[in-house]
């Protein structure tokens, strides 16, 4: 495995590229996933190892059908693990929970609820001891952050796709998860809206510094958002193929990233990987 890991803080790394355990937020060890099919078992993932540090933003790219969604839903606890294990802060996960927030590809809002009610659904659950006003304030704060201060009381079904995904982002951040999992969250949006939402996402993330794992099929998006881009090999038996460190300063602007000398080097690296 040609893993290049440059650590900015110069903490000594162990031989096989592992981080000191105190820095690790999410740890995937020898992960395996088997789907039983009528034609016999289909091994999607095998021997997949990945460590993600606290406050890190990792993007994942790989060919369609290689098992990215499978991996992410296993981290979320929504898909049972066939072998190996996943731990968050050293503790093995057992099923889903609000410590791992998810932003799905479809906004998955409850269409009969307002934007505010959708965010409150999570907030009420995670902060049961807060007063009603405090919970409202939290929900409104995040809706403001995603630019929906005028749409608190609009029904989700009356919002555009882009607006709905904004609510999805607010809902995910408002429950203050340790890890945020995103599965091609902007895949269904037009490129203009996608750019807007990337900016909003990275702006909130800069503030909250939640560990984030995001699947994308857009190479530019992967570079713009990530500290590291993780490349998955094609299935069956997919694993981590390569990892690319993105050494751009934060906060980043789209312009500064595009004008950076390393940008095309990174881009070429990723495209070369995907084309082989």
């Amino acid at each position: 495995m040609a893993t290049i890991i440059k650590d900015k803080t110069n903490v000594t790394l162990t031989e096989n590229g592992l981080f000191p355990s105190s820095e690790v937020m999410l740890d995937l060890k020898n992960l395996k996933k088997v789907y039983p099919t009528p034609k016999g078992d289909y091994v999607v993932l095998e021997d997949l190892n990945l460590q993600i540090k606290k406050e890190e933003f990792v993007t994942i790219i790989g060919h369609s059908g290689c098992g990215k969604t499978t991996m992410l839903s296993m981290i979320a606890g929504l898909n049972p693990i066939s072998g190996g294990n996943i731990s968050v802060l050293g503790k093995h996960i057992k099923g889903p929970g609000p410590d791992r927030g998810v932003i799905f590809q479809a906004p998955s809002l409850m269409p009969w609820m307002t934007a505010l009610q959708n965010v409150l659904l999570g907030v009420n659950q995670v902060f049961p001891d807060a007063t009603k006003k405090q919970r409202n304030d939290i929900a409104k704060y995040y809706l403001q952050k995603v630019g929906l201060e005028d749409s608190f009381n609009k029904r989700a079904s009356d919002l555009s796709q882009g607006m709905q995904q904004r609510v999805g982002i607010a809902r995910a951040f408002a429950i203050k998860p340790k890890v945020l999992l995103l599965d091609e969250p902007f895949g269904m949006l037009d490129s203009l809206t996608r750019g807007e939402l990337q900016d909003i996402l990275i702006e909130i993330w800069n503030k909250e510094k939640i560990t984030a794992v995001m699947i994308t099929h857009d190479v530019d998006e992967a570079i713009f958002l990530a500290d590291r881009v993780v490349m998955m090999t094609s299935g069956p038996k997919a694993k981590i193929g390569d990892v690319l460190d993105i050494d751009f300063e934060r906060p980043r602007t789209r312009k500064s990233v595009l004008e950076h000398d390393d940008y095309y080097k990174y881009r070429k690296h990723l495209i070369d990987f995907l084309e082989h």
Partner: protein
Amino acid sequence: MKQSITLGKITKFMGLGFLSSLKDLFTGKLEKEDYVNFLRKVVVPLASVLLFIGLWHMGSQSLYNIEAEFKIEKALNDQGPAAAEAMRECIASGDVSCKPNTLPSPTQVWDSYKSLLRDHNIISADKAAFIEKTAALNEKRIAEGKDAITYTGRPSFVDQIFRSLKTVFAGFLLALVIAVPLGIFIGLSPTLKSSFNWFIQIFKPVSPVVWYLLVFMIVKTLLIDSNEDSSFTISFISVGLCSMWATLVNTAMGVSSVDKDYINVAKVLKLGNFQKIFKVVLPSSLPLIFTGLKITLSVAWMVLIAIELLAQSPGLGLFVWEEFQNGANDSNAKIIVAMFVIGIIGFLLDRLMLTIQNWVSFDKTDAI
């Protein structure tokens, strides 16, 4: 202007969109491009109504002639030419004793409709007078601890309609109270679903008559001590049991087929069972539940007539049956009046449910 927009919206919401174009006609707001629309939505339906009445008129006319010819022929064969001539004159004079008794014409039906209304007015006046007359006496009787004297006269046609509506709503409520909670439980648990499946499959197709007999057997025994009239109880329970299946099946289906994304959200947020059911599962199955309730109400109305007839419970069904037995010269026309009333009320009930359904449903695509 603003008002007309909202009116248009409301009528469209209720599935009565054609009313607004009819209104445009009278307010003279018809644009040229609306013309085709107007033609399709108002003129064509109106023409079809006229065509229907015309065909009906001709049909009843020829049935009348067939029966008249037969009567004259029979008189000729049995009693000779003089009797046949007498019969011909008798029929031409419209005398009740020899009038052919067949499908009534539209005018006869209209006349019967008016006579039923007149009858209703007479009965209401009679009832009002009775209540006024007995008011003082009843007060005294109640003070003495006796039962008040109630009006026991014949119910009018309009009274029968309200009796039927009362029965159908009682039956509908019973169906709702049984089928919705049961459907939720069945939908939530695959075990319950498979254990109830045979039950649903077997009882769903059972005919209203059999339900009536079953309910009759049970209620008769349960109310054996009471000397009150149990026909209302029996008929509304039968209506409820006949009609609840659509709601039961739809509720179970709605609950068990909630979008997987919503369930995942509930899982990630670790919502408790109560929250999951009331905040996620039920709201998302509401459209299907209402589709079920709409079918239930229309089935309830349809079987009601047959059940009232069997149960001898006052209402339109009994009205139709009594007119048929009665065989007076305008009985057939009254039955046709009842037929139209039943149809129109059924249509209005359906619209009522559609309106409620549109109102509660979150996706605003028109439900049909």
